[in-house]
């Protein structure tokens, strides 16, 4: 049985639909991420699971039990808030002890468990510090320890890494993964940062305008986006308008702004329909004549170069008006703006997406 089951949850604020018929199943022990742009409904869904919002329609089941009518304090679900929401008048120790005190645990047990938790998040020396005297990363770790101390069935994390600087964020990402693995507690993580979602999650649900666009493992939502929105939202992708000329079980032949492209097969694509050809920059190679052995290769001109240190991002304008992005490690040859180049990719990469 799934740990958490969301069945057809709908929530409207006036005429605005924050969630529209959302159904999701989250398994025990999973690191599950709700990903989407702001206003997509991910936070509403999180607040529903925590018990701060009621669905207008639909059900939320935890361990098969309907959560309707159960107030937040009675749910075995804890939240790490975006702003951490640490209690300013309590020390780090008392903040972490709070859920245990509410659970009326004996004093000795509280002391032992909180000390252990402080050790787990490397804050033993900060036990008596107040939140205002802790750094952002330390506050974050106190909030995490507080959310986990009572061993909830489910820990909800609301954009909780967003406030940290880039380096600390990567550190915390690794700590989160380790912690989750170690405790085996199910995490539901909300973020709008696709790189974070890809790095952390076992599975990702991509939300847009209150609807689930796609659910899957990071490699499948990145590699096989179901539609234009998902393709565009996760990672970089070049898109060219395309018309299907031929659809077989081995390949698609597309006509895209004057180019003939061979793409992987798609059963639902019918000859004559219009859509989009999309390809990730790291799948595109850039060079000169040596690319002519590739089935898809086209001449073009470098339009722009973004130097990123380890890699460079090239934008190449092709004859016919399409433009394609390519990502190249800065190990060998580099190209400059206005260079005449050739771009190419294998016939089994890239994808055709319905309009």
């Amino acid at each position, binding site marked *: 049985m799934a740990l958490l089951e969301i069945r057809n949850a709908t929530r409207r604020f006036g005429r605005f639909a924050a969630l529209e018929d959302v159904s999701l199943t989250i398994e025990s022990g999973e690191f599950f991420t709700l990903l989407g742009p702001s206003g997509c409904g991910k936070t509403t869904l999180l607040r529903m699971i*925590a018990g*701060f919002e009621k669905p207008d329609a639909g059900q939320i089941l935890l361990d098969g039990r309907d959560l309707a009518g159960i107030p937040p304090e009675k749910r075995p679900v804890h939240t790490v*808030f975006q*702003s951490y929401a640490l*209690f300013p008048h309590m020390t780090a120790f008392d903040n972490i002890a*709070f*859920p245990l005190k509410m*659970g009326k645990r004996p004093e000795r047990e509280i002391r032992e468990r909180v000390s252990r938790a402080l050790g787990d998040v490397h804050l033993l020396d900060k036990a008596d510090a107040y939140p205002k005297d802790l750094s952002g990363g330390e506050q974050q770790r106190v909030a995490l320890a507080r959310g986990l101390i*009572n061993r909830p069935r489910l820990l909800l994390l609301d954009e909780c890494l967003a406030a940290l600087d880039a380096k600390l964020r990567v550190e915390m990402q690794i700590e989160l993964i380790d912690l989750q693995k170690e405790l085996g507690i199910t995490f539901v993580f909300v973020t709008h940062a696709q790189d974070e979602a890809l790095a952390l999650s076992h599975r990702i649900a991509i939300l847009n305008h209150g609807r689930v666009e796609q659910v899957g493992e990071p490699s499948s939502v990145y590699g096989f986006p179901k539609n234009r929105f998902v393709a565009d939202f996760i990672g970089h992708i070049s898109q060219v308008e395309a018309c299907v000329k031929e659809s077989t079980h081995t390949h698609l032949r597309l006509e895209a702004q004057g180019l003939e492209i061979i793409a992987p097969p798609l059963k639902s694509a019918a000859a004559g329909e219009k859509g989009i050809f999309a390809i990730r920059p790291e799948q595109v190679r850039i060079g000169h004549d040596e690319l002519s052995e590739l089935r898809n290769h086209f001449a073009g001109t470098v339009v722009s170069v973004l130097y990123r240190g380890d890699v460079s991002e090239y934008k190449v304008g092709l004859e016919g008006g399409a433009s394609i992005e390519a990502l190249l490690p800065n190990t060998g040859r580099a190209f400059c703006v206005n260079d005449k180049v050739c771009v190419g990719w294998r016939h089994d990469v890239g994808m055709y997406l319905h309009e």
Partner: protein
Amino acid sequence: MHRLWAASVFLFLYLPLVVVVVYSFNDSRLNAEWVGFTLGWYRELLRDGDMLKAAGNSLAVAFISSLISTLLGTMAGIAIQRYRLRFLNFLVMAPVAMPEILVGVSLLLFYIQLMDMSLGMLTVVLAHVAFSVGFVAVVVRVSVASLDERLFEAARDLGASPFEVFRRITFPLILPGIIAGFLMAFTLSIDDFVITFFTAGVGFQTLPLRIYSMIKISVTPEVNAVSTLLMMLTLFLTLVAMRLAPDALKGKA
């Protein structure tokens, strides 16, 4: 030039107060010229039975009325902020803006004609509660507003019932505001004249009423002495209140 203006404004504000304080130590029955230093007027004050009784009444009224208005004002302040009750806000705040003379007269009519009450300490206490509840509510509302609402949600989320949230989160965090509200109510009550005048009746006297009845005859240095003490008390309470709830009293509401 504008410094001169500012100086003269402050002079106008504070010079009379300074004169009262200085002449309370003057060894002369007349407030005319400085004769010499004495604590005699303060000694006389301590022997003045009527004056001490009035002071006792004032302290009792101030203490009881500000306790009640703190309780009610705190509840109102929290409710207004948490549930965005604009109408309650208006109801609580209106008496603050009302002219005191109007409040005094209408309370008098209310007590005598509608309730058939005899005037005395009870009617004064009720009147003081009525005008100070609004002040407490404002101060408390501002301290509730300064809290991150996520704190309440976080506490619920971590297993606290609504009552526990109030006891362990809301109350400790707004306590400085509540104390500041209490001190304000106390200060307002102890030196109130107009409303007290209308609601006290003949048998009951507070310190401001007593001082007023004394200066009807003449301004003796004893009045200066008692005024100085009253000034010290209210100044002290105001300073404590400002320390406790700086935002509320600096008008950042």
